[in-house]
């Protein structure tokens, strides 16, 4: 049995969110950095037929497959989804997600994609689309580039370590695939955004931290923007199952702070991290007392790239986190502190 097989079994227990095929899976606004300035951002998540990789099992921490539509939406449905939110977009950054790859024609047919991109180009200052690297081909990129002025291609690289990406995350592609995609994008004048995953399963806090530092350094050679996702426990995933079995603990906020401190100023990339679900058991957390303060600081850093906001952080739990880094290896497979 492969990890994909195991994931497929796992997925069977996952509940699918049921929504009208003409509604987006989610839409929200926030703030992101654009050319060094905090700028309004719009996030759209389309309901598509779902990530082709996810349907084959997919990634161990990824619960977005739950956002896939129950029946594959028609092109009209997809456009209706877009229209349901497009009027709310006036300017700023637009980030387009599906539960898989926006550039996968199986999820978003070419005409629909073109229509969305060209329409967005009317209002948006910058469009970011997420896709797996295999869809970053000359053909697709050049087609997309035709419809939008400032386009960035975001890819879930997760880590620069192929072992981890394949065996822990089950991502199914190699670092060189990402590099190739970034090069294609660059060749077409597009920028690349790399999503990294802090603390995929089966790793100690320390290993996760070191992996992330290395990954940022590796990815920054190809990605203008690096966004570090802090693994949170999404329902129905393998990580969820592990979490239920007390075999997984989301990362410490201390760890991401440490990563950012260590890579800050050492790359040419903008490095951000949105501490989703911070302070919850299922999200990144420290001791419960300092979590919100840390989450705020991380958001602030992401918008300002000002490392001093992280340098000020402190809490009694720091020594516990440090001891955990030092000793967690000795559990031989489980978290040491929850």
């Amino acid at each position, binding site marked *: 049995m492969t990890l994909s097989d*195991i994931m497929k079994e*796992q997925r069977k227990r996952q509940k699918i969110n049921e929504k009208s095929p003409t509604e987006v899976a989610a839409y929200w606004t926030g703030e992101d950095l654009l050319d060094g300035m905090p700028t309004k951002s719009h996030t759209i998540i389309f309901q598509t037929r779902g990530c082709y990789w996810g349907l084959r099992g997919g990634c161990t921490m990824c619960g977005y497959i739950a956002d896939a539509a129950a029946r594959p939406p028609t092109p009209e449905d997809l456009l209706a989804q877009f229209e349901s939110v497009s009027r709310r977009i006036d300017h700023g950054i637009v980030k387009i997600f599906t539960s898989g790859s926006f550039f996968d024609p199986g999820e978003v047919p070419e005409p629909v994609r073109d229509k969305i991109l060209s329409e967005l180009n009317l209002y948006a200052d910058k469009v970011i689309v997420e896709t797996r690297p295999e869809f970053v081909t000359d053909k697709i990129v050049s087609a997309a580039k035709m419809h939008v002025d400032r386009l960035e291609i975001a890819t879930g690289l997760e880590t620069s370590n192929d072992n981890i990406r394949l065996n822990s995350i089950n991502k199914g592609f190699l670092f060189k695939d990402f590099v190739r995609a970034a090069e294609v994008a660059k060749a077409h004048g597009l920028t690349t955004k790399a999503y990294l995953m802090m603390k995929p399963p089966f790793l100690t806090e320390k290993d996760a931290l070191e992996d992330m530092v290395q990954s940022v350094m590796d990815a920054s050679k190809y990605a203008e923007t690096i966004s570090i996702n802090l693994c949170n426990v999404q329902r129905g995933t393998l990580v969820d*199952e592990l979490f239920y079995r*007390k075999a997984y603990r989301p990362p410490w906020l201390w760890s991401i702070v440490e990563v950012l401190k260590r890579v800050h100023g050492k790359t040419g990339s903008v490095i951000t991290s949105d501490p989703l679900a911070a302070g919850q058991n299922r999200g990144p957390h420290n001791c419960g007392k300092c979590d919100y303060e840390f989450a705020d600081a991380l958001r602030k850093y992401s918008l300002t790239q000002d490392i001093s906001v992280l340098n000020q952080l402190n809490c009694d739990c720091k020594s516990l986190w440090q001891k955990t880094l030092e000793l967690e*290896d*000795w559990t031989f497979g*489980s978290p040491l502190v929850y």
Partner: protein
Amino acid sequence: MTRFFEVTARDGPARIGKLLVRGGLETPYLLSPATGEDLVVNGGNKWLHSPVTGTVEQFTVQPYVGLTPKVNEDLVRLYQPADIASDTPSATLAHPDKVVSGADMYVISGVRSIEGDSRALLHSFIQIRNNSKPDTALYVPALATPENVSLLIYLSADIVDDVLTTIKAYQGLYLTQDGEYPVKDLAELPCTCDACTKMTGGQKSDPELLAAHNRAKLREEISRVKIHIRNGMLREYVEKQCRSKPWLTALLRLADAEYTYLESRTPTYRSSELLACSAESQNRVEVRRFADRLRQRFSSDGKILIIIPCSARKPYSTSQSHMAIINALGKYRRYVREIILTSPMGVVPRELELVYPAAHYDVAVTGVWDLEERHWVSGCLRDFIDNNRFERVIAHVEGPYVEVCAQADREMIFTSTGKVSSDESLRALVDQVKLVVDELAPQPRNFEQYLLDMFRKMADYEFGKGRGDLLVPQKGIVKGKFPRMTLFDGREQLCTINPAYGSLTLTLEGARRMKLTDQYFVEITDFMPRGSILAPGVVNADPQIRPGDDVFIIGKKAIGVGRAKMSGREMVEASRGMAVELKHVEPVK
């Protein structure tokens, strides 16, 4: 084949052993990763770390993917480590669903995650032990606390560490044998260790000091547990220690339900006391096994049965109350058979009163028997009556024993009118016995015959039904002063009662006469043993052998008798350690 670990003493599943590195390190061993001890080399995650070169003074765990005991079995298969073939001391991760072969030491991976989950933890121990060689060391990482470590060792942990105690120190927790407390809540520190002395001196919030205290407490507790193992009284200790937390209590109770796991590792005879200080004492292997053997291996030829309450003093027949009854019965005693009713042992036939643990237990006496005790003892009594062919049962009992007899629900005559040793009660007993003897006219059994019968029944109890008849000649002679007696056939000595151990000690002739070639035998390789037989010298052994059993040694060069130091399975599977302590040996002609 294990070359770097050896078990030297056992008490149930618990063991004392030796890690054969650095001149020999005694187990249960406290590994100290928190202070950087490098006895075990931890290869780390194999996606990030490269294989390690093993050295001869360290146990090396090659890089691995760590899982927890309760994850999906498919994951376990996906990430299982390779079988081990190493010249240097090796350790590997073990999962209840999969134990690879060849390691000197197994590490229960991710066991930290099932702290508090009694069922999963017990399952992990049993699965890993049942699927690995008995002489491999078991390392239970990042789980031990002063509170739980006795139960971990009871379940057979050989190595534990100071990881969790250290982490708890960094969580501000002050650990004791009886539980943990936020150190800030403690008005005074109930300890005299170095660290506590310093903390009392004002450095209370220093987690390193707290870690040192926690580690010292863990070390002390391990040291105590070793004493209990050596004294053969760890069971008593865990019956106490499990009261710290409900999950530890549940762990002991669930373990008792895994009778085979415990029974196959529990000595049959030993010189230690057995203290019954809790409801769980009744579920001890020693108690259950005694009752089992009574059903399977004992039968009485008497017509008249007298039931007598137990006495605090052991053997029972040396107690004042029993002597009063015996004296009152006088010559009528030869017509009856006696059993003693007792909690938690159930029923003890007079002939077995010297057998372990019938002569070795002590119990809390309050005059009240709880429902479990009544149920158990009356069940034992009912079985005993049903398994034998008495024509009349006389219950000469008092207090709660009366109810227990009644609960057995078999026909019996009650003779005691109050205290069993009151003049009136004794008169009633004797009158009744006279009456029944006159009516049934049973064969009398004089004292010499009684003693021979005792040897017969003890041999049956120890070696299986029918062996007593093989061992004890019709005209056997018993010499010595009760209870230290020896059985002879003419001038040939056959066996001696060892009251300290509660068993027979066989001579070679005794073993030969019992034809112990199909049971309680140990077949050895082609050598002439001296003093003891080591496990590698054992070719085959009766799997029902338990530590403490007298065994018959069969080899091409020699035959002999000795006392088993390990179970039959262990003798066959282990590659190190003393299997049998030799008592008599002679060359094969």
